[in-house]
């Protein structure tokens, strides 16, 4: 992680904690805010990736995967925006599902890291597993127990935990290799 990355991660971690507090204080409004942030983030990432493809990656071997990645992020961003006006229960479900998927990606990434012999897989594993558990908790509270406020609280707790992991990683020593 570079110095710049550490600063960005710190700020992002603090923002996540702020979001979590807003969610706990006003679950309904907080949820819209979270979804709006996710939507903007995904859309911007998609647009940025598409610009990168048009500017640079189209001349690169395997550059098409950058194009598809950009389109998928853009699609997800637009899809997320379209859910904002839906009943709250759909938002909880969407956020719960997204959290589970993010966690699964983390778990697969951990498996890949271990397979490739990387030594710094524990943080990734913790991140992935927590996301999966919390995502399932959000879905369970939202649908089976019909306690949407609890579902939102579970999500807020997950955000705080994720923020703590992010901030902890800022102070962790880098163990990646650079070929000189």
């Amino acid at each position, binding site marked *: *992680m570079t*110095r*710049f990355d550490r600063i960005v991660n710190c700020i992002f971690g603090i923002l996540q904690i702020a979001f979590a507090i807003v969610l706990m204080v006003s679950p309904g409004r907080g949820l819209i805010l979270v979804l709006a942030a996710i939507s903007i983030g995904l859309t911007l990432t998609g647009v940025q990736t598409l610009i990168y493809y048009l500017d*640079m990656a189209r*001349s*690169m071997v395997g550059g098409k995967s950058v194009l598809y990645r950009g389109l998928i992020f853009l699609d997800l961003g637009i899809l997320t925006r379209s859910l904002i006006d839906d009943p709250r229960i759909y938002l909880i479900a969407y956020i719960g599902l997204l959290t589970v998927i993010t966690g699964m990606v983390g778990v697969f990434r951990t498996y890949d890291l271990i397979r490739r*012999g990387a*030594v710094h897989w524990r943080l990734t594993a913790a991140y992935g597993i927590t996301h999966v558990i919390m995502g399932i908790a959000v879905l369970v509270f939202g649908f089976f127990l019909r306690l949407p406020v609890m579902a939102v609280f579970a999500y807020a707790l997950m955000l705080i935990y994720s923020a703590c992991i992010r901030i902890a990683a800022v102070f962790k020593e880098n163990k*990646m290799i650079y*070929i000189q």
Partner: protein
Amino acid sequence: MQIDFHYYATYCAAVIAGYSCRDSEKIAWCAQFVDRCTKTFLDRIGGPVSAATTQLQLEMMEADTSLLGLQEITRIWASFHFLPGDLYAQGPGKCSRRFLHKYRLICNTDSELLVDTVELARAKGPEAAGIAMHVLADTWAHRYFAGTPSLVINNTGYYFYEIMREGDREVEKAVKFNHNPVTKDRPDRAVYTNTMYQGTERSMMNLGHGRAGHLPDYSYARYRYMPSWGGYMEIMKDNPLDYMHAFCQMIYALKSLRDPDGRFETGHYDREAIRPWEETIRQIFEVRRLLDSEDWKKLGVEISGRALEDFDEEKYEKEYVEADQDSRDDTVLGRFIMAALAQKSMVTSRIFSSGSLLAGYPADYRFNGLKDIRDFFKNLIDKGSKK
């Protein structure tokens, strides 16, 4: 390339080219020192940090990947380790300006910049010659990669095959890369360490030949792969052949530097000079071993009659630190630093003249209010005024 070539092989080349043992040692020391002269070291000895010719792993981890940070990284790596092959190359088909500028930084051999590098070392002593030899050698090992962090130029994929000799026949094995910094490379199994894939363009993981691991630095390696910039073209890298060319070209370059009326030209390799030891040198390049220092050391004894001492990074440090400010530039390290600054300034200037800002503004742009290598210019002005 590694210490075995930069230090021991360069010593052998210098002796063959006719330099005295003492000068050959200095040339070899300076050639290897290009891989050790970091900002941290210069800071410690009170030297100008702008003269850094490489970066520590820690420095790279902490490196800023903003525009200015990237310019600094590019200045170091493009000037000393990945000398651009053609700063006015046409891009591969239709491509954006940004891509073209990075494409033009791809390292290659026998370039105009190499001529400028060697000529810059003319009449400047063994220190400058050592730096020039390091740059020359690296153009052969690091060709097809660029000295700037770039996913679109430096990335490699699953299409990576090593050609190995098993008995009488040649076999191809798919190279397996892992990212564990602790495990050693396994040439017998074609298992090597490389940097992790990072999808961002400016990630330090995409600097130089990181994505190909240390393969370009192993003299025995023969492999074929698809470079990211090649439009699905395949490249065959024959390191034993390339390293032989590098060695012969070094001898030619060093001989040319000894000649006051000489002029270095590309495409010349002094094969005649190595004839008595050609088979030994070929065997050194072919053996599947991560480091060939011992063999080169033995060859050095055979050629020069004396053993080259092990590389000591701090050999000339005391001389520099104890010298007063006015006479520091006349020490070995002082001359090395001046030569490094000149090389960096020259390459930055050429890159800038080609229309690219990837290496920032060169020192001679000072007159227009913007400058890059402050210390070099300050030194030049101070020296000029004193004279």
